[in-house]
C-alpha cells in the first residue's frame, strides 16, 4: 500500500501528473533513438549546439506573437532546420568537418537571436519564456509533442537502413547508394524536431539531456543497434517516470529531477553495465570453454 501511494497514487489522483507522464513517454519514444544515432556518429554534443540554434528562432517567434506555442515552435523549427541544413551542406561539400561547420552556424544563429531580442528591447528573461514546464501540459502542447514524435518514428523507419550503414561505414554507403546525403539531412531535421519537442516540456538544456543520457546508458548494456535503441527508450521512460515521482515526493523541480534520475542510471551503467562496465572489466566473466 505504501508502494502504491508512492508510485501510482500521484498519477491516479492528479491529471497534471498523467499529462506529464504522457509527455515524457512521447519524448522518450522520439528522442531516445535519435540520441543513440547521435552517439554512434560521435555527435552527442551536436544536440547541445542545435539547442542553441533553436533558441533564437523560438525567441523571434515569441517577440512577434507573444507566448504563442505555434509561433515559437515554428520559429524554432525554421532556425534549427536552417542551421542543420546549411551545416550539413557545408560539411558534405567542403573540407570543413561536421562539428566545426555546425559550431560556426549555431554561433551565428545565436548571435543573430540575441541581437534581434535586444533591438526589440524586451526585458522578459528569454530562458524563462523558453523553458517549458512539464507540469503545465495543455492539450495543444501535448498534441504538438505527440505529432512530432509520430513524424520522427515514421521518418526514422524510412531512413533507418542508410542511416545505420552510414554510422558504421559511410564510405561503403557512398559506393553502393546515393541515399547517404538525404538520409543525413533528414536525420539532422529529426534532431531539430525532437529538440523543439523537448523544449516544450523540459526547457532547452534538459531536452538535450533526455536525448543523450539514455543513449549513453544503452551503450553499456548492448552491442547491437536494435538493443541499444530499445534500452535507450526504456531507460528514458523509466527516468521520466521516476523523475516525476521524485518531484512529487520531494520538492525537486520536475525537469531537473528527470535528468538527475537519468544521470544516476548512467552512473550505475558505467559501473555495472555488461558491455565495458568498469566493475565488469575488473571481474571478467570466465571464458566459456568447449
Amino acid at each position, binding site marked *: 500500500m505504501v508502494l502504491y501511494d508512492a508510485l501510482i497514487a500521484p498519477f491516479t489522483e492528479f491529471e497534471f501528473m498523467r499529462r506529464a507522464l504522457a509527455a515524457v513517454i512521447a519524448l522518450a519514444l522520439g528522442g531516445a533513438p535519435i540520441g543513440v544515432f547521435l552517439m554512434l556518429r560521435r555527435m552527442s554534443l551536436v544536440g547541445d549546439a542545435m539547442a542553441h540554434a533553436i533558441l533564437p528562432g523560438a525567441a523571434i517567434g515569441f517577440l512577434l506573437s507573444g507566448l504563442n506555442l505555434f509561433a515559437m515552435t515554428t520559429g524554432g523549427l525554421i532556425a534549427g532546420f536552417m542551421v542543420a541544413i546549411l551545416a550539413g551542406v557545408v560539411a558534405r561539400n567542403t573540407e570543413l568537418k561536421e562539428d566545426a561547420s555546425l559550431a560556426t552556424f549555431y554561433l551565428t544563429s545565436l548571435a543573430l537571436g540575441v541581437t534581434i531580442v535586444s533591438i526589440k528591447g524586451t526585458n522578459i528573461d528569454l530562458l524563462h519564456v523558453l523553458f517549458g514546464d512539464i507540469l503545465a501540459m*495543455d492539450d495543444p502542447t501535448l498534441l504538438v509533442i505527440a505529432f512530432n514524435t509520430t513524424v520522427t518514428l515514421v521518418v526514422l523507419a524510412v531512413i533507418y537502413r542508410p542511416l545505420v550503414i552510414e554510422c558504421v561505414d559511410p564510405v561503403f554507403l557512398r559506393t553502393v547508394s546515393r541515399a547517404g546525403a538525404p538520409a543525413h539531412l533528414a536525420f539532422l531535421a529529426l534532431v531539430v524536431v525532437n529538440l523543439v519537442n523537448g523544449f516544450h516540456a523540459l526547457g532547452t538544456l534538459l531536452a538535450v539531456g533526455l536525448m543523450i543520457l539514455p543513449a549513453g546508458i544503452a551503450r553499456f548494456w548492448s552491442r547491437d543497434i536494435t538493443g541499444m535503441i530499445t534500452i535507450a527508450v526504456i531507460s528514458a521512460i523509466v527516468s521520466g517516470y521516476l523523475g516525476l515521482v521524485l*518531484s512529487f515526493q520531494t520538492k525537486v523541480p520536475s525537469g531537473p529531477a528527470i535528468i538527475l534520475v537519468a544521470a544516476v542510471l548512467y552512473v550505475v551503467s558505467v559501473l555495472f553495465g555488461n558491455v565495458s562496465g568498469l566493475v565488469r572489466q575488473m571481474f571478467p566473466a570466465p571464458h566459456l570453454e568447449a
Partner: protein
Amino acid sequence: MVQPMRRFRFCLVGLLLAALASPACAQDRLNIVASFSILGDFAKNVGGDRIEVSTLVGANGDVHVYTPAPADAKKIADAKLVIINGFALEGWLPRLVQSSGSKAKIVTATDGIAPRVLGVADDPHAWQSVANAKVYVANIRDALMAADPSDGAVFRANAEGYLAKLDGLDRDVRTAMAQIPPAHRKVISTHDAFGYFAAAYGVEFIAPLGVSTDSEPSARDIAAIITQIRAAKIPAVFLENISDPRLMQRIAAETGARIGGTLYSDSLSGEKGEAPTYIDMVRHNIKALTDALDQGPP
C-alpha cells in the same frame, strides 16, 4: 521674391534654435531613474513636470529576473537620483550602479516599512498595500525635496494631492473587500506577490511560484495547491501579467476553479493597457477579485 525666401530662412534658424533650446530646458529638470514601472509612476505623480523619469524595467516586465543592458547603465550615469524598492527586489541593481560610475543618490522607497519575512528573505512586494504606497510616496517626496530644494513647494503640493488620492483608494479597497463574504476570500495567483495586500485587506493568497518568479515549481507544490483548492472550494485562480499562464490554466482545468482574469502584481501595463498607473492597477485588481469572489465556489 527675395523677401519670402529670407523670411523662410529666418524661420528655419528660429526652428533650429528652438530645437537646440528645448533639450537644454530638459536638462534643468531633475533626472530620475526608477527601477520599475510602479516606482516610476509614484515619482511622476510627485515630481510632475519638474522631473524627468525613466524606468529600467518597463511595463509588463519582470523586475525579479531582469538583465540590464548598456543603455540602462547610461540612464543611471546621467541620473541625479535612483529610486529602488529595496528588500532585495532589485538584486541586479547595485552592481549596475557601481559599473556605470554614477554619482546618483540611491533612494530606497521602502524605508520605514516593516518587511513581511518569508522564510529567510523579506517579501519585496510592499507596494501592494496602499498604506505602504503612501510611505513610498513620502520617501520619494523627501528625496526629491532634498535633491532640488528650489522646487520643494511644488513637490510637497503634488505629494499632498496624490496622498489624498491614495487615501481614497485605500477606502475603496476596504469597502470592496468588505462586500465579499469572508469564507470566499481565498485566491490562487501565480507568484507570491500579494502578501502585503492579503495582510492589509484580509484576503488569503496562495501561489505555486513563491516570492520570486525565478523558481520552478515541483510536482509536489502543484499537487498541494490542487488539493487545497479542492478541499477549501476556492472559487477562482488568477493569472499575472508577468508570468507564463499555462500553469494556472492547468490548475484551473484540474480543479474546476474559474480563471478570474489577470492581476497586475509587479509591473504596470502599457499606456493603453488596463493598468497604466498604480491607482488604475489597484482598482483593476480589486475589480477582478470582487467579480470572481463574489459568486463563491462554482
